[in-house]
């Protein structure tokens, strides 16, 4: 069991009160599992990913814990967490293209980073070069400045740096969204290759693009307005989703083969609730076509089939 997250609740402190961005998240991530985190903007997927790596103000740890390989992560303690970052938990940030220091050559920058972790740059250099080959970057990028690299190259460079110390958990935040189809596919395939070569153990991919997740993820966790909605193996989520939100999200995806003149796809009417003062109970209630009285209470995230968790009263009724 690689990562166990139990009842993790994270709020953002603002002048107008707490934004309840992540509420009672409980799930496990197996060894070597690639889990996709999907949902609309503002559903808390980035909050969940970041809270496992760097829970900095205005984020505030309210409740819950995370255990990585039998060791509890001190999420709320910025200083103690430092011992875990980069070596145990690592992140590829959302704007990876802007994550490189523009005034430093890439080799120099990498040396600074690993030496801050008391790892000798010379001793890790052969491994670094092997990984550059893996992502098809020439070895002389180490003597270049970030400005000399294209967006896709920078993205791959940040991937290599983030995983250099073989973290047990890698959080990849929207790494494909700024790239075009060809680079998108290359970067996604490389992430799988990194997992296969044990450059990182378990991976959490945050993205709003479910079709990318179908290609590379082992399981998908769908979030809505700060709550977990559904988690299941990828094929189950795509072919037999049980939460109404997941169903509507999947059916709204345009695909090659569907034309507006022949078949109109429908979006999800309404907008997600504000998390400053979220509605009690199931937060999807107001947009849900199946909502009924019980939905006033928050549904538990219950295992309805092996490896398939859903939080929806309507679904519990259907299969009661």
């Amino acid at each position, binding site marked *: 069991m690689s990562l166990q997250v139990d009842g993790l609740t994270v709020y953002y402190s603002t002048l107008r009160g707490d934004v309840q961005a992540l509420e009672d998240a409980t799930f496990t991530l197996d060894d070597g599992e690639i889990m996709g985190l999907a949902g*609309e*903007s503002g559903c808390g997927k980035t909050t969940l990913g970041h809270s496992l790596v760097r829970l900095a103000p205005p984020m505030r740890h309210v409740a819950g814990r995370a255990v990585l390989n039998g060791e509890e992560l001190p999420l709320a303690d910025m200083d103690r967490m430092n011992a875990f970052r980069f070596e145990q938990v690592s992140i590829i940030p959302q704007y990876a293209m802007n994550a490189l220091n523009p005034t430093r050559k890439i080799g120099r920058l990498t040396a600074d980073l690993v030496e801050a972790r008391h790892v000798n740059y010379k001793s890790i250099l052969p491994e670094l070069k092997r990984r550059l080959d893996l992502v098809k970057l020439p070895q002389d990028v180490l003597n270049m400045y970030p400005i000399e690299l*294209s*967006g*896709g190259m920078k993205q791959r460079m940040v991937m290599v740096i983030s995983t250099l110390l073989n973290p047990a958990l890698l959080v990849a935040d929207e790494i494909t969204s700024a790239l*075009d*189809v*060809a*680079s*998108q*596919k*290359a970067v*996604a*395939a490389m992430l799988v290759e990194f997992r296969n070569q044990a450059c990182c153990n378990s991976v959490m991919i945050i993205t*709003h*693009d*479910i*079709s*990318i997740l*179908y*290609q590379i993820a082992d399981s998908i966790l769908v979030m809505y307005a700060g709550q977990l909605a559904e988690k299941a193996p990828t094929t189950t989520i*795509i072919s037999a989703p049980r939460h109404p939100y997941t169903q*509507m*999200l*999947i059916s*709204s*995806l*345009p*695909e*090659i*083969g*569907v*034309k*507006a*003149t022949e078949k*109109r*796809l*429908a*979006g*999800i009417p309404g*907008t997600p609730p504000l998390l400053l003062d979220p509605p009690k109970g199931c937060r999807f209630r107001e947009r849900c076509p199946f909502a009924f009285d019980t939905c006033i209470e928050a549904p538990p995230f219950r295992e309805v089939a092996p490896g398939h968790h859903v939080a929806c009263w309507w679904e519990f009724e259907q299969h009661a």
Partner: protein
Amino acid sequence: MLKLDGVSKVYRTGTFGGKLLRAVDNVSFDVADGEVLALIGESGSGKTTLGKMILRLAGIDGGTITFDGTDITTYRGRALKEYYRRVQGVFQDPFSSYNPIFKADRVFRLVREEFFPGMGGEAWADKVHAALHSVGLNPEHVLSKFPHQLSGGQLQRFLIARALLLDTRVLVADEIISMLDASTRIDVLNLLADLRDKGLSILFITHDLSLAYYISDRVVILQRGQVVEMGATERVFKNPLHNYTRMLLGCVPRIDAKWSNVQLPEIAGQPPDGAGEPAILIEAEGEHFVAAAG
């Protein structure tokens, strides 16, 4: 109606502008009435530059763009204003298209001052309400709000409504849904399909092939500023003839099939080199053109 003939754009790059970069190279196509034409290409393929040239936001370095038979570069003063009455654009990022210190509906007021100075207050309000309804917005919910109080989908529809206030016949839509969420992006797409049914021509610029397939009647595939394939959407998608089109189609993430082991040709992400051979388009089947080099 809108016709591009051998259009080129050259940018100067390098320290003292010593290098030339052909961003758009000898591109010809036309947009018919009530047609959605999708312009597909990767970053650096020149698709946005083409949109800007049509909107006269970038100069044309070769070839001509004609609208109803008139060269658009000849428009000056009043004639240019008349052109903008008919050809309008909406861009990628709805969040940066607004001035955050003014209310969002100021974009409508600017249109009124510029194009309808004589119109009465009530008639104008009716016109704005009609435009908002046609993009599926409730005027009571969205007028007199600041940009940060509206969602991305609402802001983007606001901009489309603004374009519709005029007698718009051609809408240049540059990546207008890539910043939107999956649940709202389909609504904006359906809106475009409805507007097309009412006779609006749309130049739909995108890198997302599944969106292009959903909405467009014809597609133009651009690579490094050149057209490599062009034709009716179904024909091009079902029977791609150029290697580049095949590569693009092989990379699209789908939810009905896993990526097959398509080898990526080493052409992805390379900027135009400026010394490319002029591509010759050959008609392969009815109205389906492909560049000869492929």
